C-alpha cells in the first residue's frame, strides 16, 4: 500500500490494488414505484386542450403550447421559420421591447420554435407571474402584428443564422438523411433556404398566423406551483379571444423508412465523418413498443449498450454512438448514428452493421434485457423529477395521442416484456437490410474503403 516508485508516487499497478482486495457490490434496496402526479385534463370552449399539474417544488410555472402546424406547400417551411422568429416582435398593444419587459418583470421567458409537424411556444415564470405570462401569451396569439421593420430585420437575421446552421456537419448530415429516407415528404423540410426566406412577406406571415396558429387541436401544458382546477378557468378567461372555426393542421404521416443503400455525401477536408442509418420503428401506442424500446436500448439506446461498448469502449472509433426512436403521431423511425475520424469511417460502419446483424442473430440475453428494463424505468422516473421535465414529457405524449395513464402504466408494461419478445422485435426491425442512410465524409479519403463494404452509393454530383 505504501510502496512508492522512485518518482515519489505509487505506480498504476499499486494504485489499483488494496490489501483488502475487491469488494462485493451492495444489493439494491427495495424499488419504490414512480409516483406519477395527477393531471387535470380539460378542453376549453375554443377547442384548446389544457393539461395542468400541481408540482410546487419551486415557486415556478412551466408552460408548453403545441400547435400542429403542417402544410404541404414547399413555401411553408420558410414562412413558418420566419413566423416563429418574428412572433414575439410586437402585438397591437405592445412593442418587442415591451413584451420582453413585461415578461422579465415576473421572471418569465417565452420562446417560439417550429418544425415540420408543429409550432411550439415554451415558457416559464415565477409562480406569481402566471397571469402576466398568460396575458402576454394571449396578446401574442390573438394580435401578433409582425411589424414591417421587425419582420425585415428578423428576415435578415434568419438568413444569416441559416448560413451558420448549414455549416454544421450534423446539420449537413441531417438534411441529407431526411431527403434519403423521406424523399419529398414535408417532414424532410426542416430548414428553408436563404432565398426562400428572402421571399417571405409580412402579409404571408399575418395570413399564416391567422389561418394556422389556432386553438382547436392544440395543447397547452402548465406544470408548477399552481392550483390545477383554478388554472383551467384562468386559461379559458385569458385566452378567450383566441378562437377559430377550423382545427390546427396535422402532418400527413410520412412513408415508412425502407432499406436502401447508404448515400455518400462528400465534405471536402472533413476530419470526421457522420454515419447516419435509419429504419422503420413503431409508435409508442403499439403493443410491441415496450419490447422494441428494450431492443433499441440493448443496441445503442444507452451507454451500456452493444454499440457504445464496441465502437467507443473497445475500438475508440467514436465519442458517442447511439440509437434512438424518433416519433411521429402514428409511426416512428429508428436512427442509429456515430461520428468517427476519417481514417476509421469504413471500419466503424462495418462494426455498426455487425451490431445490427448480431442483435437479430445473437439476441439480447436476459441480463441485457433486465439491465435495459431497469434503466428504462429508472430514467423515466428521473425524467419526471422537475417541472420542466414533466411538462415536456406530458406535451410530447399528448401530441402522440397518449395520456398520463400511459405513463403510469408504462413501468408495468416494461416489466412484463419477455426476452423472447425482445428477440422477435430485434430480428424483424433491426436487420441491416432494413436500413437506409447517409455517410457524410471526405469521399476522397474514405470512398474506396466504404465502397468495398458494399451497400454504398454516390456521391451525387452537384
Amino acid at each position, binding site marked *: 500500500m505504501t510502496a512508492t516508485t522512485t518518482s515519489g508516487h505509487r505506480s498504476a499497478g499499486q*494504485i489499483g490494488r488494496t490489501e483488502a482486495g475487491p469488494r462485493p457490490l451492495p444489493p*439494491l434496496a427495495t424499488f419504490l414505484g414512480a409516483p406519477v402526479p395527477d393531471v387535470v385534463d380539460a378542453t376549453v370552449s375554443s377547442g384548446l386542450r389544457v393539461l395542468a399539474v400541481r408540482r410546487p*417544488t419551486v415557486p415556478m410555472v412551466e408552460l408548453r403550447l403545441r400547435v400542429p402546424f403542417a402544410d404541404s406547400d414547399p413555401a411553408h417551411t420558410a414562412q413558418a421559420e420566419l413566423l416563429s422568429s418574428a412572433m*414575439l416582435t410586437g402585438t397591437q398593444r405592445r412593442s418587442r421591447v415591451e413584451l420582453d*419587459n413585461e415578461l422579465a418583470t*415576473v421572471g418569465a421567458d417565452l420562446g417560439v420554435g417550429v418544425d415540420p409537424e408543429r409550432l411550439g411556444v415554451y415558457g416559464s415564470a415565477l409562480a406569481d407571474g402566471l397571469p402576466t405570462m398568460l396575458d402576454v401569451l394571449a396578446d401574442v396569439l390573438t394580435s401578433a402584428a409582425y411589424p414591417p421593420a421587425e419582420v425585415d430585420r428578423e428576415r435578415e437575421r434568419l438568413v444569416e443564422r441559416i448560413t451558420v446552421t448549414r455549416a454544421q456537419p450534423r446539420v449537413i448530415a441531417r438534411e441529407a438523411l431526411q431527403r434519403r429516407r423521406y424523399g419529398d415528404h414535408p417532414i424532410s423540410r426542416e430548414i428553408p433556404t436563404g432565398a426562400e426566406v428572402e421571399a417571405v412577406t409580412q402579409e404571408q406571415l399575418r395570413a399564416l398566423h391567422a389561418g394556422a396558429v389556432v386553438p382547436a387541436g392544440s395543447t397547452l401544458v402548465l406544470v408548477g406551483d399552481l392550483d390545477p382546477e383554478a388554472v383551467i378557468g384562468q386559461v379559458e378567461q385569458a385566452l378567450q379571444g383566441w378562437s377559430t372555426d377550423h382545427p390546427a393542421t396535422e402532418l400527413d404521416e410520412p412513408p415508412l423508412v425502407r432499406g436502401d443503400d447508404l448515400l455518400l455525401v462528400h465534405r471536402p477536408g472533413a476530419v470526421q465523418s457522420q454515419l447516419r442509418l435509419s429504419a422503420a420503428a413503431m409508435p409508442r401506442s403499439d403493443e410491441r413498443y415496450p419490447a422494441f424500446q428494450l431492443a433499441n436500448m440493448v443496441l445503442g439506446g444507452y451507454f451500456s449498450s452493444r454499440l457504445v461498448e464496441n465502437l467507443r469502449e473497445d475500438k475508440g472509433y467514436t465519442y*458517442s454512438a447511439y440509437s434512438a426512436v424518433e416519433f411521429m403521431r402514428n409511426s416512428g423511425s429508428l436512427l442509429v448514428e456515430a461520428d468517427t475520424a476519417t481514417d476509421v469511417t469504413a471500419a466503424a460502419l462495418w462494426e455498426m452493421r455487425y451490431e445490427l446483424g448480431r442483435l437479430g442473430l445473437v439476441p439480447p440475453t436476459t441480463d441485457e434485457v433486465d439491465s435495459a428494463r431497469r434503466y428504462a424505468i429508472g430514467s423515466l422516473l428521473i425524467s419526471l*423529477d422537475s417541472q420542466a421535465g414533466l411538462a415536456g414529457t406530458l406535451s410530447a405524449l399528448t401530441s402522440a395521442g397518449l395520456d398520463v395513464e400511459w405513463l403510469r402504466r408504462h413501468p408495468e408494461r416494461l416489466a412484463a416484456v419477455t426476452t423472447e419478445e425482445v428477440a422477435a422485435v430485434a430480428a424483424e426491425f433491426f436487420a441491416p437490410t432494413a436500413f437506409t442512410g447517409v455517410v457524410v465524409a471526405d469521399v476522397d479519403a474514405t470512398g474506396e474503403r466504404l465502397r468495398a463494404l458494399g451497400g454504398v452509393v454516390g456521391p451525387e454530383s452537384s
Partner: protein
Amino acid sequence: MSTALTKAPTPELHRLTLPNGLRVLLAPDRASPVVGVAVHVDVGFRSEPVGRTGFAHLFEHLMFQGSESLEKLAHFRHVQGSGGTFNGSTHQDYTDYFEVLPTAALERALFLEADRLRAPRLTEENLRNQIDVVKEEIRLNVLNRPYGGFPWILLPPVLYDTFPNAHNGYGDFTDLEQASLDDAAAFFDTYYAPGNALVTVAGDFETDDALAMVDKHFGDIPARPTPIRPSFAEPPPPGERRHTEPDALAPLPALALGYRVADPTADLDSYLAQTLLASTLADGEASRLQQRLVHGDGIVTDISASCGLLGPLDARDPDTFTITAMHPPEVAADQVLTAIDEELGRLATDGPDAAELARHTARWSSAFYGEQDRLMHRMLALGSRELLYGRAELVAELPQRLAAVKPEQVAAAAAAAHEGGRAVLVIEPSADNKAEAQQ
C-alpha cells in the same frame, strides 16, 4: 414578485469531514424517490502540467474505466442497470463525477464512487482507448465544426499570459498522445487524495442512513497528503490585446471580448454586479446590446454576455467575463467594438435604472429556481459551490444577494470593463484555407 423572492426553498444541509480528510455534504429532500451522488475533486485543467494539456479531462475519462472491484464497463452497467444516469466533467478548477438514481440504488452509487476514488484500474490499454475517444470528442466539438472552441479555448490565450490560465483545456493531440500511465498514476496520487475531494449526496434519504453508508464505503480510503493549491493569479492586461483566428469552416465572422472579473471568494458582491452587468447587456430583447446592435444598428446577428468562462460561479480567481457576437461580413469588427464600448460607457455613466435591474434580477431568480428543481443540477451546484467557495448555501442565497445589488454597483462594473484591459478575439472565415481546419 417580492413575495416570490422571499419563499426560496432553503436546502437542508449537513456537513462533516471523515478522518481521512474527505469532506461530505448531505442535502436531503424527500420530494421525489430519486437520489444523487457527486464527487467533486479539487483539480481542473488549470492544474495540468506543461506538455500535458488536456490531461485533467483525459484522466476524468480514465476514472470510468474500472477500479479494484469493478471490471472495465462495470461502472456504467451498474449505474444504468440500477435505473440511473451518470456523467463527469472537467472545469478550470474542479472535476466532477456523478450519478442520479432511484432511491433504492443509493448504497450502490456510494460503493461505485468510493471504489474508484480508492483504487482506480489504470491500464495502458484503457489509456490508449480513451486517448482515441477524447480525440474523437475534440474532432466533434472543435476541429470538424465551425466556431469550434469559440470562445472557451480560443479566448483565454489572448487574455492571459500564464500556462494554467491560457492553455487549451481540451488538449493538443500531440500532448494527449504522449500521455503515459505513469503520468496518470502521478496525477491520481497527487490530486485524488481524499482530503482533496468532496462527496455530495442529495435527494431522497435519511441523513443518518446516508452518513453510515458514506462512512462504510469511503471511510477506509487511506489519507494521503493533500496538495497545496497554487494561486493562478496574474495581473490583468494593461490595455487591449487582439488576436485574429482564421476558421476555414465558419461562414460568418465572429468576435469575443474577454475581461477579468472580481474574485468571487474575496468580493462576491462585485462579482454579482458583473453577473447582472452581463444580463443588462445581453439577456433578452430589451437588453442594451440586443436593442442597440441587433435591432437598432442591425450590425450583429446575435450577441451574448456571460460572467464566467464556463458560466457564473464555476471557477475561482481569475475568471473571464465574455461578450460574443456573430456578424455579417460587411460589418467591420471595429464597428461592433465601438458600439459595445459606447453602451458600456453609457452604463458606466448612468447605470441601469432600478426597474431594469429588477427585471434582470427576477429572471435570475427564475433561473436559480429552475436549477434547484432538477436534482442533478441542484446537487452539482451545491457541490461545486461548496468545493470552490466553501458555501453550498450560496445556491439558496443568490436570488436575495442579486436583488440587493444596486444600480451604481452595476455602473461600477461597466466602468471597470470600459476602462480596463481586455482581450479581443476575431474569428475570420478563411474557406480557401482548408489546411487550417485539418490540423
